[in-house]
């Protein structure tokens, strides 16, 4: 009976938010969500003025270094994520991907340029040449580039240093192992802690610590995790089942 109706009416009627049973978000639940947000630190990601200042400082430092003729290399101290930049600029749109122990950063970023990737519209699904640089934060940033252009140098950034690769590989591998185990099931705090300690011990990462700052409750009883290599800490965070 629906066959002869206007396709766009049918599309509108097919809206899952209409047809699915309305989620019963109680006032208490909404208030709890609101409270958890406004009690968090609003300044965790630097606000724009700090970003701009950082960019200015980077560019300034870069100019000095380039003028002195240095070719700068830096270790990757934040190996767990890769920033894929849309253009060769520090303030460009970027997508952050989890790093892979097996896939180089530039290959990871190729995916966002392929058909259906977020940047495919820019190049018709043909990935441009990509170059990995190291940001001030120690994270890898991958920029579109040309064969003749040293984009890292032009942006005042360093090239990734190869010497830290083994250690970083181990940390990325740890992230992979933990996330795959955490995604499989809802882990309560004791079980999650045991699994993290087991994976740390397996890699002899004895200096690392496991912390949990937020309370686990019946509505947020499953552990998620955040890994911070700079302070060698894994935080277990309560999320809903």
């Amino acid at each position: 009976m629906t066959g002869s109706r206007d396709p766009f009416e049918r599309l509108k009627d097919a809206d899952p938010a209409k047809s699915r049973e309305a989620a019963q978000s109680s006032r208490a639940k909404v208030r709890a969500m609101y409270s958890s947000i406004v009690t968090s630190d609003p300044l965790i990601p630097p606000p724009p003025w700090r970003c701009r200042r950082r960019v200015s400082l980077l560019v300034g430092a870069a100019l000095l270094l380039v003028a002195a003729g240095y070719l700068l290399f830096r270790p990757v101290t934040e190996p767990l994520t890769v920033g894929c930049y849309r253009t060769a600029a520090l303030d460009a749109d970027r997508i952050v991907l989890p790093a892979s122990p097996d896939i180089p950063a530039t290959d990871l970023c190729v995916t966002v340029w392929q058909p259906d990737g977020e940047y495919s519209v820019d190049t018709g699904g043909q990935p441009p040449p990509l170059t990995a640089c190291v940001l001030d934060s120690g994270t890898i940033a991958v920029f579109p580039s040309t064969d003749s252009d040293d984009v890292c140098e032009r942006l005042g950034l360093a090239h990734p240093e190869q010497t830290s690769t083994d250690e970083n590989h181990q940390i990325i591998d740890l992230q992979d192992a933990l996330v795959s185990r955490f995604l499989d099931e809802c882990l309560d705090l004791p079980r999650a802690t045991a699994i993290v300690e087991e994976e740390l011990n397996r890699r002899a990462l004895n200096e690392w610590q496991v912390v949990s700052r937020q309370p686990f409750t019946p509505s947020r009883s499953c552990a998620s995790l955040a890994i911070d290599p700079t302070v060698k800490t894994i935080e277990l965070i309560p999320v809903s089942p």
Partner: protein
Amino acid sequence: MAGQNDDRDERFRLVFDTNLSRVVDYARRRVPAHEVDDVVSATFLVVWRRLEDLPAGEGALPWIYGVARRVVSDRYRARGRWQRLQVRLVGIAPADVSSIDLVSDVDVAWALGRLRGRDRTVLVLAYWEDLTPGEISQVLGISVNAATIRLHRARKRFATLMVSIIEDDERPAESHGGAP
């Protein structure tokens, strides 16, 4: 200083109350029911932290949708990546693929499933989120002109697919709902 914080809190409260139901609906269209709260919470957490960047007035909702879109995309990307460890990433699930599984009209689901991701995204924003091309352009970070053209093309492709179902009855029974 306290006054500034009070103003910030008050502005966020207003933004939260005004846009909560729209963000909940946005999430419901794209993720399973048990993940809706997490997407909504993560979206408003970004809004809270970047409140100074939030456009005033009518620009706020498209901006918030843009944040929600990234939150949802991140979840798919993470799932695809982490559930297929050791497997190369050869195609990130577009943010709106999951919506096909949630559509009850099998013909619409079939047609959506055969559209390219970018066509599906723009149609869903126009017909489910009720956004204008101007608002879609803000969500996707493209020009209004590009959004208008993309919507026009997506409409045409969708209509063609729907007509093909009606006229030719060519839909294979086992294939509806699949991604292209």
